């Protein structure tokens, strides 16, 4: 976009970049805020349909489209209560900490080739790391609320999220290993083409680890059946028991933001990102580099593809939530430590051996002399830009 502004519109460079940055930030913010509205509406509709109800029907026309907006307005107008014994500063700060963490992770999430807030060569890592920060808001909320139920919720969330980061990290490492890069764009591009190129179907180990990832992702964003931090039948509402109004809605936006994020991450890591099951763009002759407009169109298509996959993931989470009972905290921890972690570790090892043993695998430093790798690295074909660098490494590795 910046190049377009500079070259076609004639903006000075600084202005072009500023405008680009602002637009990107606003877009991401809107994806979270707007996405949360849509997803809340969807959740209500889906829950209603699962339960033989209709859900919202009136607000904003036939399907209650504007129900969540109306709710949002109600929340803004609602009195913002704070318990007497609460730690005021932390209590006020906590929702924003949660929301910011969820928001920040979107910076590195690519929506299509080059449709990314900031392309980081450690993108996967960044997303997972920042997502883990959301727990701080929850802990602070639980502590600052001066309510025992909130504290219970916060402690559960802390224990749960920190534990689930271990298997989640292991699951995420597998596609990284297959792609030979931690750059989300590179990982997605490696899966371009037909559905068989998806890492989900790369080998049996990745197929299994995808489901481990799904479990851990659901747990790490606190959705049923792992929603212990806000278990309403046990802890009233868990960490946000004492919250009301706009601050409470920030927690909600953070929750839906993270749900979308982990789904999008799953799509990028395992399901080809913006590369669909069928390479439509390539089949009809629209591929990268056939001109600016066509290129742009392809990317828009890719973005729709990714958004579709991520939304599907979110919908599955909703489906699960309205179907399954909730686990107990010790069972949640058992699931993590006794099942998810060992399975993830075993699948990781399996995928590694698969790469090593079978032709076409990547085994850096083992199959080639170190000097050769270094030479390849230094004299990569694609010039000296960062993106080209990573592809150079990927290219030089067998």
């Amino acid at each position, binding site marked *: 976009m910046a190049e377009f502004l500079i070259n076609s519109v004639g903006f000075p460079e600084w202005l072009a970049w500023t405008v680009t940055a602002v637009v990107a930030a606003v877009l991401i913010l809107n994806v979270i805020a707007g996405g949360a509205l849509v997803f809340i509406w969807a959740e209500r509709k889906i*829950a209603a349909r*699962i*339960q*033989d*109800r209709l859900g919202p029907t009136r607000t904003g026309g036939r399907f209650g489209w504007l129900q969540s907006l109306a709710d949002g307005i109600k929340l803004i107008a609602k009195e913002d209560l704070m318990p007497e014994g609460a730690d005021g500063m932390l209590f006020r700060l906590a929702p924003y900490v949660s929301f910011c963490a969820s928001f920040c992770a979107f910076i590195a999430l690519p929506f299509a080739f080059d449709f990314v807030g900031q392309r980081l060569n450690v993108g996967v890592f960044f997303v997972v790391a920042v997502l883990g920060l959301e727990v701080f808001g929850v802990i602070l909320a639980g502590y600052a609320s001066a309510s*025992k*139920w909130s504290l*219970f919720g916060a*402690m*559960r969330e802390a224990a749960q999220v920190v534990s689930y980061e271990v298997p989640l990290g292991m699951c995420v490492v597998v596609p990284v290993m297959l792609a030979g890069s931690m750059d989300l764009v590179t990982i997605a591009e490696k899966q371009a083409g037909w559905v068989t190129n998806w890492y989900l179907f790369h080998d049996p180990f990745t197929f299994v680890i995808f489901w481990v990832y799904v479990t851990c992702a659901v747990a790490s964003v606190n959705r*049923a*059946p792992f*929603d*212990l931090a806000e*278990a*309403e*039948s*046990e*802890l*009233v509402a868990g960490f946000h028991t004492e919250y009301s109004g706009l601050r409470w809605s920030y927690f909600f936006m953070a929750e839906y933001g993270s749900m979308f994020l982990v789904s999008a991450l799953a799509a990028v890591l395992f399901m080809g990102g913006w590369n669909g099951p069928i390479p439509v763009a390539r089949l009809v002759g629209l591929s990268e580099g056939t001109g600016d407009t066509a290129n742009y169109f392809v990317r828009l298509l890719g973005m729709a593809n990714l958004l579709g996959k991520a939304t599907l993931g979110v919908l599955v989470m909703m489906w699960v939530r*309205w*179907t*399954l*009972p*909730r*686990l*107990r*905290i*010790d*069972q949640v921890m058992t699931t993590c430590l006794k099942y998810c972690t060992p399975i993830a570790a075993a699948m990781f090892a399996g995928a590694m051996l698969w790469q090593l043993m079978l032709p076409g695998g990547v085994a850096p430093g083992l199959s080639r002399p170190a000097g050769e790798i270094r030479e390849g690295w230094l004299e990569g074909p694609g010039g000296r830009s960062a993106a080209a660098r990573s592809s150079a490494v990927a290219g030089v590795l067998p």
Partner: protein
Amino acid sequence: MSHVADDPRIIEFDVRTDEMLVNMGPQHPSTHGVLRLVLRTDGEVVSEVEPHIGYLHRCAEKIGENLTARQWIPYTDRMDYLAAMNMNLGWALAVEKLMKYQVSEKARHLRVLIAELGRIASHLVGMGAYGLDLGTFSPFLYAFREREKILDLFEEACGARLTYSYITVGGLTADLPPGWLGRCEAFLDQFEPIIKEYHALLTTNAIFVKRTANIGVMSRDLAIEYGCSGPVLRGSGVDQDMRRDGEAIYTAMYDGYAFEVAVMKDGHYPRDHEYPPVPADAVLGDCWHRFFVRMLEVVQSMDLVRQSIDRYSACKGPLGEPLKLAEKIPAGDAYLETEAPKGQMGFYLVSDGSAIPWRVRARSSSFSNLAVAPELCRGCLIADVPAIVGSLDIVMGEIDR
């Protein structure tokens, strides 16, 4: 600071923590009304639970000393308001026992029909609310969907949807409207396959089993000693059902009806229907068995309703009028326990010969069933408390009266 280790079984290695007193209720989503549980917890582990009741106390017994026996019927509605028909029946039978009154054959079968439908409705709520306690919302609404249909039938029969006052002293307030039986049978036919869905969603669900199997195990002796009754007692393997074992005036109502008490005998449940197998983790007397007994009783009640429909329609002649509102009751006292959905509902009536009872007493099953909760919850996790209390299927209206 030194700690004396006396029994290796009760020594745990953990971080030093402090006990915390937590109020669960009276405004809490999972306490089935206005029950207040004071939990003494150590982290997630509950060391002591103390139920505080009385938030719904409406002095029903005192009111009963100022009304005639039939006038008190609406107050029985408000005891177990989820099975008001069965409450009406219990009181009506207790008064009839003291008066040595026998209702007509047609009224008898109609009473069975209504009472068993009431049992289905109550168990549906119990089942759905239990799902809610365990964090799954949908079965609750599935249960309510079917209960609504029963309430529609009740509404047609007596005009009310919650507090019916339909069964009354000396019979029932009115006969069924025309076509009612057909609609009732249609409901049963439609409802029967749905039970499989409930089993799929809850009974056999892996997470549900994990949450309920081997949780809150109540031994047979504990259940009996606390005077537990109904599915709570049968869930512990005690073969007792007042419809079969009760007093003559009550069991006579079920004379000729074929039903098998839903209790685990010799390691298995009655096998007159397709039931899911008992999971390996489940222990007799745990939450799962209490829940399962309720599910079995729904099927059993459907059978009974079908039988009663046949018998009722075979009865010729009038239903018979109920007793006068201010009918004098002979002096004396009588106590009768009936098998309400939640357990044995006992009514005790002392009369001095006038129309107004001298003393009225309602012995509710939930009262005794809840009294065990502290025993069951000792040492469980916080998440188990709703699971255990929910499996007792209490109704506060009945406990506090």
